[in-house]
Each structure stands twice: as C-alpha cells, then as structure tokens.
C-alpha cells in the first residue's frame, strides 16, 4: 500500500465529517432497528415485560393458526393484481394523449395533477362521501341513467374495486413521468417507421414502449412497494371491513403492533412483507434487462 499523503488524510477526514449525519442516522435508525427487528420477531413482547425468546413460534402461528393473516395477504394481492396493471395502462394512455401540440397544455396538466396534491385524509373522506350508497354522488348519478349502483365500500365484492377507482384519481404524477419520457423519444424514429409503413399499434409496441421502458420500470417498482403500504384508505374509509374484505396488510400489522401491542408477532408480520416486497422488486429488477431499454448504455454501467 502506498502511504497516504497528508493532503489525502485530510480529505479522508473531511469526507467523513460531511457524511457524519448520515452515518449516525444509519446506525441508530437503520442498522440498529434492522437487527433488533430480526430478534424481536423471535420473541413475545408486549412492551410491559422484557421480550421473551420463543423461537419460531410467531412464524409457525402465522402460517398455521392465523386466518386474518391469510386474509390480509389475499386482500393486498387482490388489490395489487387489479391496481398495478390498471394504473400502468391508464397513465400511459393519458400521457400519450397529452403528448401533442395542444393549446392549454399547462391547464390540463395542472388539472390531472391537482388531486394528488390533496392530503390523503381529505381524499379518503371525500371519496367515502362520494361512495355513500344513498346520498353519495356516484349512485345518484347512476340513478339518473336508471342504474342502481352498488354498495361500494359497504360491499365485500366492491370495496377493493372502489379503492382502485379512487387511486386512479391520483394518477397525475405518474402520467407526468411518462409524459417527460415520451418527449424524449427522438422524432426520427417515428419518421423512419412511417416510411416503413408502420401503423399506430406497431409504432406503440416497437418504438414508444421500448423507449419509455425506464420510466415504466421505475413506476412499476414504486407501485409494487406502494401497494403493500396502503393503510390510510382502509383505516379511514372502511376500518378493514366489511367482513375484513379490505383488511390490507399494513392495517393488520398496525393493529397487531399498536392496538394489541404484540410487538414480537407484528415484527414477524413485518418480515414476511419484507421478503414479499423484496421478491417482487428483485423480480422486476432482474427481469428488467429483458425489457428495459437504456439508450446508449453499455453493459455493466447500469444504475440501480
């Protein structure tokens, strides 16, 4: 090893001085909690007595004797299966429509963006009122065209679709991401495609989608993570009901931890969701080399 010059030693010290806030934060807000979360998940801990080691019993109970855990998983997966593809398709379509020379473009963009600015609490309460089966706007509008609307949040089969519909209202930011990506697609590609006689669908499939695939990749990852964090909507609008039909995973975890104060059990719940999220995120990342196209990016230079 070469000996470091005085200058280099000084630079090293300065480097660590500048990143010190993060290092301290990492130790007590990430590494410490991360390690203790592993330990806690193998204990029984109600915050009154110190944690007691019980081995794998939390995990065994989760998979053999906790129908609500299974229910929460099913609810969350059901929501993900509907909302992730639907939001993806609709936001891309909306971005394609907006990607034109349009007068008043800023106005449209503002309107689409506006709902996502509202605090979640305002949104949940507003939509709970819109979905009101008797006095809400939706069923009264349906009534004027002669349709008797569903019971929305009060119906076991409609509650998840209702929350998905509400989510569509907040699609603005994603649409803006796609719009920015679309505006980066070089004109020449479309020009030459046209010379070759490629139709709209062909252009969409062979030029547009590959060119915006980095944005799709980012949004897909974010929405998968977001799905497992749905909490406020269920907590505020339905309290997990009816009949646990909207018992989202995060809500169940909250109840175990902060209502029943079963911290060990809740830690085990957290680890299960940790591995599920990691599995899907890695799936998207690993598969990305097959479908995400980085223009001019050499192999091995990819960023996370």
């Amino acid at each position, binding site marked *: 090893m070469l000996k470091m010059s005085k200058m280099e030693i000084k630079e090293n010290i300065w480097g660590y001085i500048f990143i010190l806030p993060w290092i301290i934060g990492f130790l007590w807000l990430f590494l410490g909690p991360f390690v203790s979360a592993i330990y806690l998940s193998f204990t029984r801990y109600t915050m009154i007595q110190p944690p007691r080691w019980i081995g794998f019993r939390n995990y065994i109970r989760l998979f053999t004797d906790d129908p609500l855990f299974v229910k929460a998983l099913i609810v969350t997966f059901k929501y993900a299966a509907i909302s992730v593809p639907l939001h993806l398709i609709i936001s891309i379509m909306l971005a394609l429509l907006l990607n034109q020379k349009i007068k008043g473009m800023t106005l449209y963009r503002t309107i689409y963006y506006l709902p996502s600015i509202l605090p979640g609490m305002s949104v949940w309460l507003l939509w709970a*009122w819109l979905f*009101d089966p008797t006095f809400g706007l939706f069923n009264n509008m349906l009534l004027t065209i002669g349709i008797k609307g569903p019971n929305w949040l009060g119906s076991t089969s409609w509650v998840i679709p209702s929350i998905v519909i509400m989510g569509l209202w907040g699609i603005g930011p994603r649409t803006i991401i796609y719009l920015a990506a679309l*505006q980066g697609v070089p004109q020449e590609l479309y020009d030459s495609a046209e010379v070759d006689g490629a139709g709209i669908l062909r*252009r969409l499939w062979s030029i547009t989608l590959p060119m915006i695939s980095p944005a799709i990749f980012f949004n897909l990852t974010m929405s998968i993570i977001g799905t497992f964090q749905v909490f406020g909507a269920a907590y505020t609008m339905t309290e997990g009901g009816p009949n646990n039909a909207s018992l989202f995973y995060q809500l169940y975890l909250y109840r175990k931890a902060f209502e029943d104060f079963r911290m060990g059990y809740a830690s085990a719940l957290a680890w299960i969701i940790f591995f599920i999220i990691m599995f899907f995120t890695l799936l998207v990342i690993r598969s990305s080399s097959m479908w995400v196209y980085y223009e001019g990016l050499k192999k091995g230079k990819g960023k996370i």
Partner: protein
Amino acid sequence: MSIKPVMKKNKISFWFSRKSVRHKIWLGIVYVIISLIAIIFLVPLVWMISSSLKSGGNIFKLPPEWISRPLMFSNYPKVWKIMNIPLATKNTLIITVLSMFGVLLSSSMTAYGFARIRFKGSNVLFLVVLATIMIPSQVLLIPRYIIFKILHWIDTFKPLIVPSFFGSAFYIFLMRQFFLTIPFELDDAARIDGYGHFGIYWKIILPLSKPVLATAAIFTFMGQWTAFFGPLIYLHSPAKRTLVLSLSTFRGVYYTSSWQLIMAGSILIAVPSMLVFFFAQKYFVQGITLTGLKG
C-alpha cells in the same frame, strides 16, 4: 438514464404524420377526450366544495343539488373551532418546518461529502445509502417505536422531526446527482481563494443548487403536511394533534352525520398544499421527472 426531457418541436407524430389531412380531425377528438377526462377529474373537487356549503338538512336531500340554498359559509368557522385549527396548524408547522430544515441541511452535507470529496470507502457507503431506500419501512417501524419509547419521545414531535436531521437517503441521492453536474473547476478556484470544504459547500455548491434544494424542500413539506401514519402512532394527546390527525378524529366523532363539516375540514387542511402547488408547480414537475427518470 439517457432520456432527457428534451422538448421536441413536433410532438404529434406518434399518432399521425405531421402532414396528414386527418391530423386536424384527430386533434379535435383528442381535445374532446382530454377535456372529458379533465371534467371527470374535477367533478369530485366540485362535489367537495358544494357539499361543504350545504346545511345539515340539505346534505341528505335527494336528489342532491350542486348549489343548495342557503349557502352555509358558516360551516367553515364552525369546523375551524371544532378542529382547533390554530393549534393544529401550529403543531403541523413546527413538525414541517423543522423537518424541512433538517432534511436540507443533513442531506446536502452528506451529498456534498459523496459528490465532492474523495475518501476511502465512499463508493461502498454510497451503495449502502441506496440500499436503505430499498428497505421496506415496515421492518424498521416497531424497533424505532421502541427506541422512541425508551427515549420518552412518545407523544412529542421528536420522532417526527429528529430523524430528518440524519440525512434522508432519497434526497442524498438526488442532491449528489445534482452536485456532480457542477464543474469541479469552481472548487479549485475557491481553494486558491482560501476556502476549505465548508466554505465551498456553503458559498459555492449550495447557492448553485437551488433547484434541487427547492425540490427537496417542497417534497418534504408535502410529505409532512399530509402525513398520517407517523402522527397517528406517535402523537396521542389532543393538544399535540396535527391538522390531518385533527380531521381524522373529528370525523370519528361525527362519523356519517355531518358530511358538510367533514368536507369543509377536508378543504381547510388541503388549502396550504394547494397554494404551495400553484406557486411552485415548476419544481413539482421538475422533481417528479427528476426522480422518475433517474431512479
């Protein structure tokens, strides 16, 4: 990575060629579609305002009216009092402003270290920063709660503020990327003028980084102003309630009986975020596309 938000002069070509005769008709159809969607997006907002101005009797009138007399503007002062808006605003502001300050200071310092100083282990440590973004927050939730409980921080603002002062991985990433685009010649010139690292950071880099700092500030503001989960867990006494918590408990009491007041409250807590949005729209779009494409 390589996609830059370059504005092309002509953006219509995905659908039809520029010279196409059908192009004008098509553009007309597009206008109709996007206007219809815009109306669909606006209807819930109009319904929220309309409901907030109804009397307790008219709110349950069938069929519902868009403008129902009398217009009850008095719903707003009423909610103002029930939700104790002045106190809740004060609480929310304390949390929001201090977090913004903490995030900007600690994240920009850390980002400076990673972007402008060569030190051993910086690459590995930066990968660790990125890894913390990927960690699902659920596993950290309970141990952190226990730590704050041991520190006697439950039912104080500290669990919501103090972590901001230890760097936020996402903003560190964002700022580092930005700092890397600032020419290194500036540092050399500053060093000749006798600046050390703190001088360069404070006098050169930060003033040149206003766009990314503004983006981080606004996103932190929006995040904290609208936060629900954190305040729900950490704040218990009524005197500590944030605006969002105050609305949530108020709704719990009145459940489905006073929708006009609940709507008025929902509007009141949304006004500040709306104002920030309208005055700083540029940074929103910038921030969203920055984060979206560099991810």
